[in-house]
């Protein structure tokens, strides 16, 4: 089963979103990563590495991020991971909330790494109204 990691500058935002995703994602491992170790707003690439290590399986891991520097932190985390792991980790360019929910549903029904990524990214093209 594909795992999801939700990266935000805000711990509350990441945790709140993880709650929302778990509602629809059943057994899918969903890990929120947000804020710095000392509780400031921000992102920490080493915390993302730990999150990947915590839920890693060869089925793969999809990361969804909020704003600019969380993308940089996620890319940095990919470089810090052993290559055999980072090869099964994908960064999604999807909007965080819609993308995470879509990815959670696809992962729950047994989607592959590529199909979960595609489901998340389809949220880019779904207007709210």
């Amino acid at each position, binding site marked *: 089963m594909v795992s999801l990691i939700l990266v935000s*500058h805000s711990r509350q935002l990441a945790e709140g979103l993880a709650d929302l995703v778990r509602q629809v994602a059943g057994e899918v491992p969903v890990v929120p990563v947000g*804020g*710095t*170790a*000392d509780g*400031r*707003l*921000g*992102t*920490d*690439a*080493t*915390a993302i590495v730990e999150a990947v290590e915590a839920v890693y399986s060869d089925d793969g891991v999809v990361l969804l991020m909020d*704003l*600019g*520097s969380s993308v*940089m*932190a996620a*890319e*940095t985390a990919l*470089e*810090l991971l052993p290559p055999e792991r980072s090869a099964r980790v994908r960064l999604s360019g999807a909007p965080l909330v819609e993308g995470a929910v879509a990815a959670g549903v696809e992962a729950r029904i047994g989607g592959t790494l590529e199909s979960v990524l595609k489901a998340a990214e389809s949220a880019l093209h779904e207007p709210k109204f």
Partner: protein
Amino acid sequence: MLRPKHQQFVRGDKRMDKEGLLRLLEKIGQRIHEQRDFLTELDNAIGDGDHGHNMDKGFQAVHDRVLSNPGPDMGKVLQQVGMALISTVGGAAGPLYGTAFMRMGGLLAGRQEASLEDLPRLLDAAIGGIQQRGKAVRGEKTMLDALIPAKEALEAAISAGKPAVEALADAAAAAEAGVEYTKTIRATKGRASYLGDRSIGHQDPGATSSMLMIQVLKETLQERDQ
């Protein structure tokens, strides 16, 4: 080959050893700490107002984790600095400066000493890391607008055969001019890009922190040569 400490470096020496690097890092941390409110004020105007505080946190971690327990060579020390910044800064400066220090560390792997001639290559590695991470180029109101001119000025000074202190003075002057230049352009990267043309007139906080580091490097060599 070990030399007695007191004669390790003579006036005009173009080299720096691991102890020198640790002193430099300490001084950079002090300067960032002194300037944290100024950096935050700059970031308040066009960003999310945390650059000074974040950088101060990062260099506090450098102090606590690296200076007290430095790795065996200059490359390892620079990589430790990169990891400390990546894991504690919080904002974009963490991955950006963190990657820059990691790349510089890669170049100095196993080395106990670096010379002035290594510095343009080190700056190139730092600039390359920042460009890759930030997907920015020169002229977008970022750290690169201080670092790239500094590197170019340094290369020109070395080609002209200038002594280390003068070469670093040229690099610092170019970084200062680069920071001034960021006042005249609009941000297209990062949080400041949301402001569009309203970012014009403000100097970039990232370019400013890069300039501070180059200034400290210049001052460190000047003090050593006195």
